[in-house]
């Protein structure tokens, strides 16, 4: 079991206080929003994709706990410049690794919120329907973590 104090190591708090690309993206081509009903975390992600399927720019906005917001900043910083295929291959496990400190299953949901929104944003062009890939995958990507249901 990880020492929980490590969850708030300086690297994490740095991203929380000084996030990468937090704000609106005016000429976004793709965008989506997601919530974590357990804690009320909200993340919106906006992307600008070029014709070659590369993320030219990525921005996020949101509200919530340190983990949800700091992890979003880390993810957005990581994926700018990557191709859509590279981002689709970026797994939930890799996201947890990117964050760093070990998280309990409940807090993994906070960390994976931005990852989940990013994956669905790729399938959510701003003008038009969700593409066939997303529909075939059941609308939102799956991961092996606990369900994102309401707290009891």
């Amino acid at each position: 079991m990880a020492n929980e104090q490590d969850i708030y190591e300086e690297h994490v708090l740095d991203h929380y206080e000084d996030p990468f690309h937090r704000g609106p993206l005016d000429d976004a081509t793709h965008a989506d929003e997601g919530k974590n009903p357990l804690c009320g975390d909200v993340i919106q992600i906006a992307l600008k994709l070029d014709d070659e399927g590369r993320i030219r720019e990525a921005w996020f906005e949101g509200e919530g706990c340190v983990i949800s917001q700091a992890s979003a900043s880390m993810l957005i910083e990581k994926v700018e410049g990557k191709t859509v295929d590279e981002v689709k291959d970026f797994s939930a496990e890799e996201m947890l690794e990117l964050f760093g400190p070990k998280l309990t299953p409940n807090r993994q949901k906070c960390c994976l919120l931005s990852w989940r929104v990013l994956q669905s944003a790729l399938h959510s062009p701003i003008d038009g329907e969700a593409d066939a890939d997303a529909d075939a995958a059941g609308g939102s990507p799956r991961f092996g973590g606990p369900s994102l249901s309401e707290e009891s």
Partner: protein
Amino acid sequence: MTFDPHQLRDDFPILRRTVASGQPLAYLDNAASTQRPQVVIDAMSDCYQNYYANVHRGIHTLSEESTAAYEAARVTTQHFLNARSSREIVFTAGTTAGINTVARSWGHANVGRGDVILVTIAEHHANIVPWHQLAEAVGCRVEFLPINQSGTIDDSVVAQALKTHRPKLFAFTATSNVLGTNFPAQSWTEMAHRSGAAVLVDAAQAAPHEVIDVQQWDADFVVFSGHKVCGPTGIGVLYAKLEHLEAMPAFLGGGGMIQTVTTEGFTATEPPEKFEAGTPPIAEAIGLAEALRYLQRVGLDNIRQHENALCQRADQALRQIEGVDVLGPMPDLKGGIVSFTMDRIHAHDIAQWLDTRGVAVRAGHHCAMPLHDVLGKTASARASFYLYNTVEEVDRFIEAVQEVRKKFASKGRRRRRPPVTNA
């Protein structure tokens, strides 16, 4: 018996453990669920080890013994609530199941299109959603009583709502699970009855902490959960006046609730069995009865007094911490619950940091989203006290909250810039 929480702690084996960080446990999440004394654990083990069998069915020694213990648990519960008859005590799966039973059975039989169910905005989802479901099914409306600035509801507001809406049912909590506010069950019931409404009191947060006399309250329905009174999970109590239970249709169909079954249909048995379809939670009922006896030995008045003292200490100390917003009324108007938020710090980060100090609190919306909406909060942190909590634990809690303030304060931190690449 003198009341000494330090001595009572010895009755609860779990309180000896440490948490993941290695710190000793300060369990302040009692409004979510309480811990069990050894006598409750032993009573359930004794059942399983020595006399467990299905109840009301077998003609053999174990079934007779189990049935006797199960029915004795019902009588213990009857006395705990001062109900007129043990037939007014229905064992359910918990408070949620109790309220759903009333909504599905009494509700469907007595509530129709255009009727109103009146609740408060401070209800737990378990006392909101079943009424929303009833509304979907029969076309009634759910109306909410607002809280005032101090987290209470004036009697005049209740009186006005009863007059305006003429509800079929007034369903309210005796103690808010977020604000800790105590609502006056007896006087509100009297007001509701005068206006022709039936009354359901959600006593999930009251039964653990105060003497309940259902005859004095005179409510039509009272519900509570086993696991919040030091008893097992999976069991709760629905008290209802016998005339209601007799008139209400059976809700779940199955074994135990029938008199006869033919290929054409069935006839239901009498209450309370009519509402206990299927094999009931037998060992749980026995454990619950043991828990109720334990609380009565300790003394519910002693418990209440002790919790109020802890609540007052925590409430006062929290209000002195910069950036802390304590929800709900001052301690003299509430049970042993203190919910709070901190400026620019999410409740989950508060709870996570407190856990590093061994302090277990709840963070989230506590299954009360409508209340958090009107409070303008997405989530709050909640400390809730019980008989085994101590002044020292309250002080550890406060100290940890002060640390949270320092830990998450803005310090002008800068993220490490990624190395510049030549694209």
